[in-house]
């Protein structure tokens, strides 16, 4: 069990050509970015713009009072 972990760590320690183990030449690095970019490009629901508008409105009411 311990030895297996050691081997894995040694293998994973190898960086890709750019020296970055999570860089574009690493399968894990590429998938990680693909996974995340997909989430970032997801359309933002209206509720957030509405929320900020509400917060702004609450502020202006408070400032007047």
């Amino acid at each position, binding site marked *: 069990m311990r030895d297996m972990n050691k081997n894995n760590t040694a293998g994973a*320690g*190898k960086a890709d050509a750019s020296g970055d183990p999570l860089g574009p030449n690493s*399968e*894990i690095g590429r998938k*990680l970015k693909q996974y995340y970019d997909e989430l970032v490009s997801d359309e933002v629901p209206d509720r957030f713009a509405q929320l900020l508008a509400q917060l*702004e409105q609450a502020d202006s009411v408070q400032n007047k009072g």
Partner: protein
Amino acid sequence: MTVSLAFKTDLLGAIPSLRAFAVSLTQSADKADDLVQETLVKAWDKHESFQMGTNLKAWLFTILRNEFYSQMRKRGREVQDSDGIMTGRLAVHPAQQGQLDLKDFRSALEQLPEDQREAIILIGASGFSYEEAAEICGCAVGTIKSRVSRARVRLQDILKVSGEAEYGPDAISTQVMGSSVA
């Protein structure tokens, strides 16, 4: 103190990243959006404590992360400890020809303990430096480095891929297995 237009604009601009980070943490789209909402309200309330010119994204990620862990504690859910999790418990089938399915990757990511998952997301996907990630997570730079490294090893283990896709032993064994069938 009124919230400046610039702050509001930056806040709006950060929402896609905040949602992505929130989904990565919660593994649920609904919970993620609630978390982002809480984060925006908190950020609005304490906007005076943000220093203009410093990294707003890092500041917001810190708020979101704190909110996530405090909600988990409130729900009585134990925060996963990376040392207590068995490796490769739910190993997915080996990737074929080095091509990794995004669905498999997602499920592998889900198996990581939270501390490792957030570390590898912050460093490998959100574009933060180790120093920034350490600040967001409130820990030492070395801790982030070791979490990222353990996360990478675990993902490679679960997904049966090697660090170097083209030349790793897995790519070779796939070829060997493929040719024996033919």
